[in-house]
């Protein structure tokens, strides 16, 4: 057909349901991420500790292997709440590194290239946009935190006897909820930074700084003012506090137990406040227009 005979025809195919439109962005974000060889290597490396954790569980439940290794001793291999705390601490730190690599590019590219008006001119809200980007980070970080955590829990439940699964079923809740708050906080901070700082190199630095510097300042505040509330600025420590409470940890594995301890609701409050602040920044930065100064 000659070009001049062509006329505008609206799209006649099936539309993506409104509730799952945000997932289109997630799909494209993943496609973009997996193009990077470095990212694939980083993802594989972040799952390596899980293999070691699984190996430990296998040895802990296999008396023959223990005999062969001549390491048979009561209490040497135990898979209890402390062990799952270790898994969670290790994997949430891995998630932090993964987030620092992935997060800065998610929104910055769209803002730099002026793509946001194109997204928002479609039947696609700002909330959908943020949800799509958040889902990309959320799914990725879930793959290295609570999903392997639950798989290891299932492995232990399958190998252990004497009704281990029923006496430890409560641990499923902290595995999921503690991971969820950490993932949500990391993802929202990354998206807020990505929306505010367009350069990847600077954004990565800002994400790191937003975790390390407040912690240092908080400690400084404590030592100068003779207080302990400065620890509220140490997000990692607040997360560990929540983790210790969630896993009913009383041995001081995550730091010495003292009377001067931040209450757990305050720790939750800080992490939620960080999430809210990030959402406020996202709300301010994500507009379907851009003012160009100069």
């Amino acid at each position, binding site marked *: 057909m000659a070009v001049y005979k062509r006329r505008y025809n609206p799209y006649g195919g099936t539309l993506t349901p409104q509730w799952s439109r945000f997932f289109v962005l997630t799909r494209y974000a993943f496609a973009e991420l997996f193009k990077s060889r470095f990212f694939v290597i980083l993802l594989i490396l972040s799952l390596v500790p899980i293999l070691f954790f699984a190996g430990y569980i296998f040895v802990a439940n296999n008396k023959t292997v223990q005999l062969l290794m001549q390491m048979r001793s009561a209490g040497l291999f135990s898979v209890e709440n402390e062990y799952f705390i270790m898994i969670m601490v290790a994997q949430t730190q891995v998630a932090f*590194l993964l987030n*620092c*690599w992935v997060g800065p590019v998610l929104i910055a590219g769209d803002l730099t290239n002026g793509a946001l008006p194109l997204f928002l001119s479609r039947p696609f809200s700002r909330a959908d946009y943020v949800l799509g980007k958040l889902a990309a980070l959320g799914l990725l970080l879930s793959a290295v935190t609570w999903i392997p955590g639950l798989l290891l829990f299932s492995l232990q439940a399958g190998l252990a006897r004497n009704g281990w699964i029923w006496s430890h079923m409560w641990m499923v809740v902290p595995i999921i909820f503690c991971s969820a708050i950490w993932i949500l906080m990391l993802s929202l901070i990354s998206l807020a930074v990505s929306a505010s700082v367009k*350069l*990847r*190199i600077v954004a*990565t*630095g800002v994400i*790191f*700084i937003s975790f*390390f*510097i407040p912690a*240092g*300042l908080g*400690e*400084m*505040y404590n*030592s*100068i*003012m003779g207080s302990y509330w400065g620890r509220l600025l140490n997000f990692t420590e607040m997360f560990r506090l929540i983790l210790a409470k969630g896993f009913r940890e009383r041995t001081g594995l995550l*730091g*010495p137990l003292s009377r001067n301890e931040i209450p757990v609701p305050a720790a939750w409050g800080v992490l939620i406040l960080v999430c809210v602040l990030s959402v406020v920044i996202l709300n301010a930065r994500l507009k379907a227009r851009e003012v160009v100064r100069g």
Partner: protein
Amino acid sequence: MSAQDLVARAQKWATEQPWRLYGSQISILVRNELRRNLFTRRRIGIYLLAWVPVLIILTHVIFDRNQPAGPAQIETDTQVLAGIVQLYYFRLGIFFACMAIFTWLFRGEMVERTLHYQFLVPVRREVLVVGKFLAGSVVAIVLFETAVLACFYVMYSRFGSTGKSYVFGGPGLGQLGSYLLVTALACIGYGAVFLALSLLFKNPIVPGVVIMGWETIAAIFPDWAQMLTVTFYLKHLCPVSLPLSGPLAIFTIVAEPVPPFVAVLGLLLLSITILALSCFLIHRMEITYTAE
């Protein structure tokens, strides 16, 4: 080729170099960099990194002005100041500020697409590296030396005559001198590391944080491995030892004491070696603005 031949060749090379020209080129580069980078909006974060401790100490002075200011309190505040310098400035403040200042020297030009102007002028790339490094060092040193000085002044000024006699008649002035020396050395050491990282990696932040981890855990490694860290040399120059216990003690462990002049020379040698590596790396550098 014998050693004598090598020395003779080195001497011939040294006499053939136009050192005066290099010197003037470096001074122009330093001036340009300072004019462009010392007072900009982008630097606000770095100023905050340096000056927030001063604000916290100022708050402490205002709120605790009615507390008795005796020798015991001076002792406590000396420990607090040592904690601020050794834990905050060396481990976080100067580290991240140097990360921001020195990685931006070349990566920033790459991002702003102006590096080719620098490469097109008739200046050797080594001169460019040294000039930019000196400019970054001047910015970092000026910023953090004034901040440390302000912390020291605010901390002891509230003690009045007792504070004055502690500073001028006691160990205070010596401690201040040590802190200023160590701050300058920290800026130079971290600066050299981050300059090299920015020439080696496209995004030097993640390797930078790996360096941070290495600087933290190096205390548990053998001596020769510790010598490859900046903090190893700084720890030996700190005038006040911190009574830290638990995991934080890793920041202050000194396996084998080293004389101060050896520590200063060691750190300068490490920085010069890393700078020489940067001079080698700059020759490999190609401008690919599209990849940024």
